[in-house]
């Protein structure tokens, strides 16, 4: 490349920068970069929903197993990136529903309200209004069970306590052999 064509390319680049609105460049950049990781509030809402999917009983539930840590770790990985829009739609739905019915955010609501809101996700009326929400919720069931039952090094299944429910059919040495 000679000096003249090099300068022509630079001028074209500067011209494009000046003539194109900044928000368009930023939107193009964001599209190429993919969706941003879920923020803290979104992770907390997802953890609360996960607790209703896999609740505390005589054996630990999702929250005490450390689902929040698992979600923070996994949503940083490329594999979970395609789940981000699903997670975002669910958390938005929960907040919207809470604001509409109870005039508060999902996280500010008490446990009973949260439970009622989560149960509306699978209601036929909701599915009619938001056709994607059932698939989103099913994805969250898979994510929750992965978080609860995966090896603890991924952040969930604290002290391998989730495996208690599997009874005698899981031999802990299997995981170390």
């Amino acid at each position, binding site marked *: 490349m000679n000096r003249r064509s090099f300068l022509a390319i630079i001028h074209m680049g500067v011209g494009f920068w000046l003539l194109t609105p900044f928000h368009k460049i930023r939107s193009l950049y964001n599209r190429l970069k993919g969706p941003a990781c879920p923020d803290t509030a979104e992770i907390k809402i997802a953890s609360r929903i996960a607790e*209703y*999917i*896999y*609740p505390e*009983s005589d*054996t630990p539930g999702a929250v005490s197993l450390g689902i929040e840590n698992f979600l923070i770790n996994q949503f940083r990985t*490329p*594999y979970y990136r*395609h789940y981000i829009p699903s997670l975002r739609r669910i958390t938005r739905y929960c907040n919207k529903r809470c604001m509409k019915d109870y005039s508060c955010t999902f996280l500010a609501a008490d446990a009973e309200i949260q439970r009622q809101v989560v149960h509306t996700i*699978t209601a036929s009326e909701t599915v009619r209004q938001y056709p994607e929400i059932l698939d989103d*919720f*099913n994805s969250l*069931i*898979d994510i929750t*069970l*992965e978080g*609860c*039952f*995966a*090896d603890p*090094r*991924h952040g969930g299944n604290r002290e391998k306590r*989730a*495996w208690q*429910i*599997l*009874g*005698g*059919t*899981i*031999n802990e*040495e*299997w*995981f*170390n*052999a």
Partner: protein
Amino acid sequence: MKSGLMPERDTIFDVCVVGSGAGGAPATAFLAKQGLRVAILERGVNYSARDIRKDELTACRRPMFRPDYRKGAREILYGNEPPLRGNHLWTGTCVGGGTRVMSGFFFRMKEQDFTPRSSFGTVDGATHLDWPISRADLEPYYDQVEADIGMSGDAAHMPDRRKPFPFPPLKEHPVSVLLDRGCKSLGYHPFATPRAVLSQKWNDRGECSYSGFCGSYGCMTGAKASTHETYIRMALETGRVTLLPQHYVYRLDTDGTRITRAHFFNPDSVPGTIQARIFLLACSAIETARLLLNSRSERFPNGCANSSGQVGKNLTFTMPAEVTGFFPKELFPEPKDCESPFVQRSIQDFHTLESDALVYPRGGTVVFILPHPNPINRMIALSYDEQGKRIFGHALKQKARQFFSYNHLQSDTFIEFLPNPETYVTLSHTVRDYWGIPSAKIAIRHHPENIRVSHHIAGKVAEIFQAMGAVGVQYNPSPFTAGEVQHGTCRFGTDPKTTVLDPHCRSHDIKNLYVTDGSFMPSGIPVPSTFTIMANSLRVGDYIYRNG
């Protein structure tokens, strides 16, 4: 020549092998030992034993042994269901291929398995053919594979077995005593499952650690006879083999009569080419068909070596009959010194069936296993009800508690899959991979006779479990196979109009092209196929050396 280094641009190898699994590695090692220079291109990663983790999330639910969605997307038409896109039906994608994640059930085909059409007749809508070779042709190569990889088993209860196995059988699960009693009470003949897993240390390979996380996880001790531990290692020791992992071959060039070069993308997605005198394809039945169909030219407008129009047709898998028995904990002994999910018991009493209800009385081999522990997989399976709706909350926990209050025994069944015109591989018009190459479009429809045979065998297995004292038996009626075992897209035979390969697995159209993965099989087989693919690979390697 060292592994992983790209040779000089003008290097012309004696043989270029595409795929390092059961079909590619044995021929590679054989030819390299005879003094030929071989390049082996593998699209997957070369994992060492240190990379293997007993971690379900990493090994089974993430794309460790298969390409990720961008690189491995396919279009799948299953029965009447809407088209599915996803990275499904891959065999292991790594150096060692599917043998890295196999269970290692190594059965020889019986004499009549080579003549399914003349021995058992035709069935409407099925396109199975007799093989152009017999068991006697394959027998010496079966023996050679056993000696090369180190198999474990007990010949005592196997009537068609001529000599003992190289290694004693693996430790048996205590339930095998109960299983033997149940089988014998019904007149069946259980025997120790022959396994391609070492029961004792051998050379620098360790013995089986009886880890519950075997199968899809890879092996940390080297006991499992994956080609990574056996033939690839032997091949590299000759110093005449160049192993190129993460090299994806996407097209073959021909001059009309011979393959001249293979085009690949290297790990940085930079395109390149490789030249050789002979090309040997072994990248699984689906991917071999895709590679040939993607290699169109003026001489072969429908795909390389496809003058018959048969490339991609007659795809077969294995037909399952998955039955789970529920046993009270006190009846079913808890594992003590043997934690492996493998019971080490099989029966072949259903190899040939006697039933007036069946048009095609061909069954298969039943291997008994404990369910793999995989907690995530099992919990996700439990989160579906019978109608396919999701269960969650306390209902899910209750269901899990009830399920795990019993011990379970399962049948892993390998029934001959009938090839039919509605099960095939072609190129997708809508899905392309990361590099822009058309992906495989895979259509699967089970022959109705296969479904009947599966139900029939499931009923027989249920009787065995009941004779053992099971309190419940569950049959999974889904005929959908996991898809790791695939054959039939480039069948071998003597007629160039109806088959793609000659009896030596050489293309009828192109004289320097061989195919040695499961593609060559002209029928499904009633045993797991990896052993046969390995033996055939040695047979073809031998032929190439003598005649190539």
